[in-house]
């Protein structure tokens, strides 16, 4: 294996991180690692300040209020909170055909227990916004309580029209939960302006923080009382109460928060704002479009999606994704192969039988690295 690795698995987690993120995490651990909201001594207070600063920064970027930024440990965690906290027995849910298992599995589990029913709305790369909205509308029932949209696919980077879906949900008084795991930091998302009930984000992908912090960002239309708590425990306030607090965010934040990860997320948010979401998106999109254009017309490759948005999934004729991935890894190129925790998406794009090789870019990648990948793929084909 080459000493210098080329990292093309940014849809799983971005790497490397900006130096400011590393410094922020290190600074927290070494300088003020108290337990926020659990005391009034200097270390706890400093930690509380950093936690709040991160809420404020996230609220500013995503169009909400600081107290409506709920810290979780991941986007999966946030999605579980949204699904299990907001749905009631008898509700019907619509999920996207491009859903990740972080959406599909909690919905499936509730349906298996007989608590809810669900349907999958179709979405394909050629769909217009109107096509997607029409597809959702067609499946609505009187008991439909929630639509869970996948803003950007983790296998093809295809996007769904969140603003248009939000407008539909608002008209029908339906909650809109958005899986922003791939779009956070790549596409603008305005929770208030797009009528989003709950936006679920990881801190460690497009926001360039470290693993261990995610966010559930709530819109105006959901109150603290509307949430059934999924996890109960210490909240730092009102300890004599037997129930979790009736206030956001504390109602949904039981236990010690991941302060070092949140400190890193704050630095990541600052970095994203400094570079700018348009620039971040255009950089990744340019790389994925370049790769896609190089292999889409080559009969040795089957390429899925349009390749615009930072992610390209493909298969090589005569080789399994695992074989391709291993040969690339042996030559220092990191990709991800298989189903990417998104079987519904693979079914939607036509790669369900085999899975695929996924190449996903970040702001830290370059055209030179893509050319190295293309060179190695040529050697893979010849072996």
């Amino acid at each position, binding site marked *: 294996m080459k000493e210098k690795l080329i990292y093309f698995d940014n849809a799983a987690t971005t790497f490397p991180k900006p130096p400011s993120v590393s410094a922020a995490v290190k600074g927290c651990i070494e300088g*003020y690692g108290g337990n*926020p*909201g659990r*005391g*009034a*001594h*200097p270390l*706890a*207070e*400093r930690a*509380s*300040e950093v*936690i*709040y600063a991160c*809420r*404020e920064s996230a609220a500013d970027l995503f169009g909400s209020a*600081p*107290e409506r930024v709920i810290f979780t440990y991941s986007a999966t965690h946030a999605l579980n909170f949204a699904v299990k906290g907001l749905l009631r027995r008898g509700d019907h849910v619509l999920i996207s055909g491009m859903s990740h298992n972080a959406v599909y599995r909690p919905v499936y589990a509730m349906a298996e227990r007989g608590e809810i029913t669900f349907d999958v709305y179709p979405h394909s790369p050629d769909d217009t916004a109107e096509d997607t909205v029409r597809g959702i509308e067609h499946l609505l029932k009187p008991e439909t309580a929630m639509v869970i949209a996948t803003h950007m696919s983790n296998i093809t980077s295809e996007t769904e029209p969140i603003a248009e879906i939000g407008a539909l949900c608002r008209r029908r008084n339906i909650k809109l939960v958005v899986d922003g795991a791939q779009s956070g930091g790549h596409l603008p998302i305005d929770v208030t302006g797009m009528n989003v009930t709950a936006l679920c984000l990881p801190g460690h992908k497009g926001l360039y923080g470290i693993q261990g912090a995610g966010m559930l960002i709530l819109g105006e239309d959901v109150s603290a009382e509307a949430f059934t708590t999924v996890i109960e425990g210490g909240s*730092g*306030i*009102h*300890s*004599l*109460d037997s129930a979790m*607090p009736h*206030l956001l*965010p*504390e109602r949904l934040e039981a236990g010690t928060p991941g302060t070092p990860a949140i400190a890193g997320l704050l630095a990541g948010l600052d970095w994203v704002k400094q570079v700018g979401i348009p620039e971040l998106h255009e950089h990744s999109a340019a790389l994925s479009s370049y790769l896609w254009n190089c292999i889409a017309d080559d009969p040795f490759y089957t390429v899925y999606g349009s390749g615009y948005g930072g992610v390209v999934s493909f298969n090589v004729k005569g080789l399994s994704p695992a074989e391709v991935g291993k040969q690339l890894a042996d030559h220092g190129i990191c990709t991800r192969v298989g189903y990417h925790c998104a079987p519904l998406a693979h079914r939607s794009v036509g790669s369900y039988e085999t899975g695929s090789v996924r190449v996903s870019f970040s702001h830290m990648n370059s055209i030179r690295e893509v050319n190295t990948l293309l060179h190695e793929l040529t050697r893979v084909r010849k072996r």
Partner: protein
Amino acid sequence: MSSAFTFFPFPHRMEADVPMGTDFGEAVWKGKMKMSECIIAMKSVTYAEKAKRAARSAGIGGQIVSLDPSVTARGCAYGISLPCREVRSLLSLLDQKKIPYGEVLGDDYYKLSDNNYK
């Protein structure tokens, strides 16, 4: 890094759960108690941080403090400590910014700090 204080029991509790917009100040200004530091109880540590930032941006001093359990009905709470003469201004600001708050707590407490004075 700011210091935080732990307060011991307050002999004077002023009002419970002050509704937004309430003009609480008459009892304080009539000199029925010593005038130095007052505390506005906040609904949560998050709202305490929000209030502190709002106060600072308006040039009003204030520090987040932990409230003694004897003055809280539900245990473990936080407040903003500030000179009593600035309480009215801060409450007006909190009302304007729709930041909820609770009791306003008065003076005559024992304070432990870096200075170790009462």
